[in-house]
């Protein structure tokens, strides 16, 4: 990898930190506006927010300002310190996810050798935050929501990781940049024009990854933890104002990050056919390509979200343990066999 600019460590870190602070709220803004507001509205034959700014683009800013004005309320029985920490823990897991997401040969906060492992480990910290929120709220619905979230996220962490294993075996590396490179230099039956995006060879893993990510993000067919009709909002029932905003931002920031992970591991990441893998121009074009792929993946996530009704708790667990995990194991075995044979 070539280095674009030679800066002292602290300057580089400062720039990266500032970028991350600007990018993460923007990502959730984009997802909420494009999909939650507009696409959902069109799928229900209505217009969505339309009056705030051109085509309602500033609606979310208005909502954020509204949340900032609200009073910060703690329930009398709540465990105050844990109650205050919970949204921060959830948002921290989102921020940590962005550390390894690559958007170009050098456009990455930290290029870790164990990138995939790190991303999977860090994404499961949010379970802890959700459980903290549910437990400390001193509310039976919040507790039920927190416990459901814990059960669900643990059940779906497994197929998620097992699905990623297939990609890792094929790419022979845990490094996310290495995975992009492996796809860029790969060949489909001797034809290397578009590289070898792993969605072709690992289609089963891609499906399992997307389903498990849907559950991990608690999006609708798997949204028992927040089930507003039975749990009136689940773990964030007692949160108001800015703390609720943190949960909200974390939800969509994580959705964006998971879409980015999927596009890195299955769609070829930032690489554009016809360029060298470490071409400097990809640092500029890469983020755009990544954004397009992320929006495509996010479109599928939210399409599924707006189409299906909620599963029951037992159906959810059955689906994870009886269908997804065996399938993921089969995928690992098949990938291993093909890796050894070819």
């Amino acid at each position, binding site marked *: 990898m070539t280095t674009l600019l030679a800066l002292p460590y602290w300057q580089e870190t400062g720039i990266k930190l500032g970028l991350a602070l600007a990018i993460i709220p923007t990502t959730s803004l984009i997802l909420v506006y494009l999909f939650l507001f507009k696409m959902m509205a*069109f799928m229900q*034959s209505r217009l969505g927010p339309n009056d705030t700014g051109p085509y309602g683009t500033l609606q979310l800013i208005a909502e954020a300002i509204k949340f900032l004005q609200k009073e910060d309320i703690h329930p009398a029985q709540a465990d105050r310190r844990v109650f205050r920490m919970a949204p921060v823990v959830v948002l921290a897991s989102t921020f940590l996810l962005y550390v390894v997401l690559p958007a170009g040969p050098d456009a990455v906060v930290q290029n870790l050798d164990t990138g995939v492992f790190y991303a999977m480990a860090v994404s499961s910290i949010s379970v802890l935050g959700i459980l903290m929120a549910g437990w400390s709220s001193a509310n039976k619905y919040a507790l039920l929501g927190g416990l459901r979230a814990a059960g669900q996220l643990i059940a779906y962490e497994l197929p998620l990781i097992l699905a990623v294993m297939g990609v890792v075996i094929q790419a022979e590396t845990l490094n996310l940049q290495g995975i992009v490179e492996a796809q860029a230099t790969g060949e489909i039956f001797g034809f290397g024009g578009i590289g070898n995006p792993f969605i072709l060879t690992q289609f089963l893993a891609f499906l399992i990854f997307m389903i498990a990510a849907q559950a991990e993000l608690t999006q609708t067919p798997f949204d028992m933890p927040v089930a507003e009709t039975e749990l009136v909002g689940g773990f964030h029932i007692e949160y108001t104002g800015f703390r609720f905003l943190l949960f909200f931002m974390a939800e969509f920031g994580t959705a964006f990050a998971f879409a980015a992970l999927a596009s890195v591991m299955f769609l070829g990441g930032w690489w554009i056919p016809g360029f060298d893998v470490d071409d400097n121009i990809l640092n500029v074009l890469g983020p755009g390509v990544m954004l397009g792929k992320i929006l495509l993946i996010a479109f599928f996530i939210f*399409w599924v979200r707006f189409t299906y009704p909620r599963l029951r708790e037992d159906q959810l667990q059955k689906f994870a343990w009886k269908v997804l995990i065996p399938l993921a194991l089969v995928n690992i075995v098949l990938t291993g066999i093909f890796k050894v044979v070819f």
Partner: protein
Amino acid sequence: MPQLPGLIKGLGVTAKTAGRTLFPKRGWKTLIPAPQKGAVTVQYPHEKEAPPERARGVIALHEENCTACMLCSRSCPDWCIYIEGHKVKAPPRREGGKPRTVNMLDRFDIDYALCMYCGICVEVCPFDALFWTPEYEYSEPRIADLLHDKDRLGEWMDTVPDFLDYEPGSEQKVRKVPR
């Protein structure tokens, strides 16, 4: 996987609805997104929907018919009707008769912050003083302004629609709205 065709069909339904909403035009114009035309919702402050003829929007009071009998006030489940009146002497009906006592209405308020639009007061009024009108735009920034006094309630009388004809063969006479 017997559920799979249904799941895919569901995705198709939502996608088709989104497409129809975003691209409602036919022919070559299909490519121009026009969600304003495709959406089935009425964009309320910009365009208004005509309410149904017998919609329960607001209650109008025909003050001359009211005798301050308090029936509406007593039957109101929310106790949102406030009536005050006093008795006055009126000239006798026939020559040489005794002077009558008549109830005069001083105050007739309906608090629309409390009203639940059940219509019991309109049903129970024996003197045809209360009527439904389909007007619905009377929200206020201050909740106290939702208390409509008898002048305000009287203004609504202009918007009361005529009663609909009964079905053919009915022997009942259609009620008339006092104008």
